[in-house]
């Protein structure tokens, strides 16, 4: 027992050391940036601590935030250098880094979270944009995400594209973007990895799945966009793109092909897909409404004889989003209807009983998934915000309690059948956000979840999940 505890302590100590090393690395980078430019003007931005602390009323908070303030001081100086220096072509550089600590009563979320918790969710990104011509914008972002087995933290190109403004007259714009683009759906997908732009440490998982995230996140595409603003009615922004989705990761294969994803030797291949979104905003931005939809086509390339046949999957979700913003509070709700079609070509010639089972279990198949959430945010002060959310997901809307699925699975897999609760998830979330400075933010949130439909099947063995579970998480995030 004792040795286990000490092992655990050593383990977490190592993890913390890693985090500190990362912080130090970022810190030293900014020191360098500062030194290069010592002759530039002194940072005028750094306000005296007394003024900065004025909103923190509790003395305990005040001293704690004082410590926090000292750490990003160097970074602030570097940021200030970016701000005060005229960079060629209006170059802008921004970035963010977030670290979360997640602990769960049962089931694993981003690492081994149910045994004392884990620091398994780390997100960092760096982006640059430049305007070589008044109508031309070039931008790219590199993202590193460490989250469970599915995301190792390997940096990848999140987006990289050119944006040409074809037409611009007063408040009406029309343009084209070519490259790897964030998929425009819902209110949050475009910036889902930036903690500052999210309503919570975890996005509503029913809509913004973290397990098929690479598929949902960005795609190589050509996109047309327009912004039309009317002086009294409001504005409409639309985006429409033809895209090749990104499907070459294990989590996506698992999500679409179930446990077969592990055994199969073939791979998912991307086919031409379509995506679009329209957002209406009233002029005071109090009312925001959006409709987004996509038509995603994915093929399956068999990897030999002992495999499925060359099947194809069509995934066509449609999303409705609505938000009302007042000075102190915001109400948000989104609804998604997700249509899955598996054609019957997944049939296999393999002699493997298991594969035959999987293949007849998978296809042909045609069903609708359904999800929605309601969310309220309240800004007690500009520094403190509270959030309350109820988030529901049904993998198959005609089988909301998963019983039919369970019966079918029992027939095919017997004792290894996934449980009925893997087909739904109802999540109640309460959270608090503290904007310590405009650049640094701390967050805490608690989830009570009934069901495991959005749990990563890579991180969890489906037979051993618990239906009712709790999640508590804290997160610190820095951006510039």
């Amino acid at each position, binding site marked *: 027992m004792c040795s286990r505890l000490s092992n655990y302590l050593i383990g977490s100590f190592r993890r913390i050391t890693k985090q500190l090393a990362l912080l130090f690395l970022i810190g030293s980078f900014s020191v360098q940036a500062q030194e290069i430019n010592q002759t530039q003007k002194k940072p*005028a*931005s750094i306000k005296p601590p007394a003024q900065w602390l004025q909103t923190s009323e509790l003395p305990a908070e005040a001293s704690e935030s004082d410590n926090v303030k000292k750490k990003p001081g160097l970074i602030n100086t570097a940021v200030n250098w970016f*701000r005060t220096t*005229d960079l060629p072509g*209006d170059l*802008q550089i*921004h970035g*963010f880094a977030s670290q979360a600590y997640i602990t769960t009563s049962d089931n694993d979320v981003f690492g081994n979270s149910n045994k004392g918790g884990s620091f398994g969710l780390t997100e960092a*990104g760096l*982006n640059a*944009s430049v*305007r070589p011509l*008044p*109508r031309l*914008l070039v*931008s*790219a*972002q590199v993202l590193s995400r460490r989250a469970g087995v599915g995301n190792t933290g390997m940096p990848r190109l999140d*987006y*990289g*594209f050119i*944006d040409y*403004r074809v037409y*611009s007259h*007063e*408040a009406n*714009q029309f343009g084209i*973007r070519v490259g790897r*683009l*964030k998929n425009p759906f819902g209110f949050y997908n*475009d*910036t889902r990895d*930036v903690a*500052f*732009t999210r309503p919570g440490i975890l996005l509503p998982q029913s809509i913004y799945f973290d397990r098929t995230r690479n598929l949902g996140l960005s795609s190589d595409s050509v996109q047309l*966009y327009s*912004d039309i*603003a*009317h*002086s009294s009615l409001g*504005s409409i922004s639309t985006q429409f793109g033809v895209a090749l989705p990104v499907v070459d990761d294990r989590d996506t294969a698992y999500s679409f092909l179930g446990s077969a994803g592990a055994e199969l030797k073939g791979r998912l291949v991307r086919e031409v897909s379509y995506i679009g979104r329209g957002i209406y905003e009233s*002029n*005071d*931005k109090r009312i925001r409404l959006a409709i987004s939809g996509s038509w995603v086509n994915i093929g399956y390339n068999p990897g030999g004889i002992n495999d499925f046949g060359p099947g194809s999957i069509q995934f066509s979700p449609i999303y409705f989003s609505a938000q009302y*913003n007042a*000075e102190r509070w915001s109400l948000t709700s989104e609804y998604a209807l997700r249509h899955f079609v598996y054609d019957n070509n997944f049939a296999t010639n393999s002699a493997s009983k298991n594969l035959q089972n999987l293949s007849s279990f998978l296809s042909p198949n045609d069903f609708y998934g359904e999800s929605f959430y309601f969310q309220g945010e309240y*800004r007690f002060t*500009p520094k403190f915000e509270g959030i309350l959310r109820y988030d529901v997901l049904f993998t198959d809307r005609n089988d909301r309690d998963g019983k039919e699925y369970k019966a079918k699975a029992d027939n095919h897999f017997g004792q290894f059948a996934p449980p009925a609760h893997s087909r739904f998830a109802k999540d109640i979330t309460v959270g608090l956000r503290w904007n310590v400075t*405009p650049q640094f933010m701390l967050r805490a949130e608690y989830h009570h979840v009934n069901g495991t439909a959005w749990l990563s099947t890579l991180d969890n063995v489906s037979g051993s999940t618990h239906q009712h579970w709790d999640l508590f998480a804290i997160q610190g995030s820095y951006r510039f």
Partner: protein
Amino acid sequence: MNLFQFLIRIQFSKYCLPRNRACFCGALLICLLYVDTEAWADGQYEIVTYPGVSEKTLSVNSLRSIFSMHLKTWSDGTKIRVFVLPDDDHLHQSVSKEKLNVFPYQLRSTWDRLVFSGTGQAPIKVNSSEEMLNKVASTPGAIGYLWRANINENVNVLQIK
């Protein structure tokens, strides 16, 4: 603000008009006074541009589009460069709420969405009125805002229709 006045008017006309005319006139007077004080409050700051910018007037619609970072070029095709004070600055909050009619936190989230999806750039942050004046006076295509007391001949004042 317009919506607010409108609502007041509706309410007054709903409840007071049938009862007596004097009350309605009183309500109108209050509305007018309200408009007056607002105009007075508005007069304490101005939207300013680099002297080389050819625009002398701008619609609220275009102004909102500029500060939302959607409109990127002046009518002559040159770059617009937007300068703003920190989110918690009093002048920034006044301009945001009164001129643009949006809450500062909404501007911030609009900019964040652009910056972190790559579809736009953030406005350039300055930390004081002096810096705002210097930057707007010296950066081609610049637009910003200043208290009247801080405005001098090095920047143009933009009329907002």
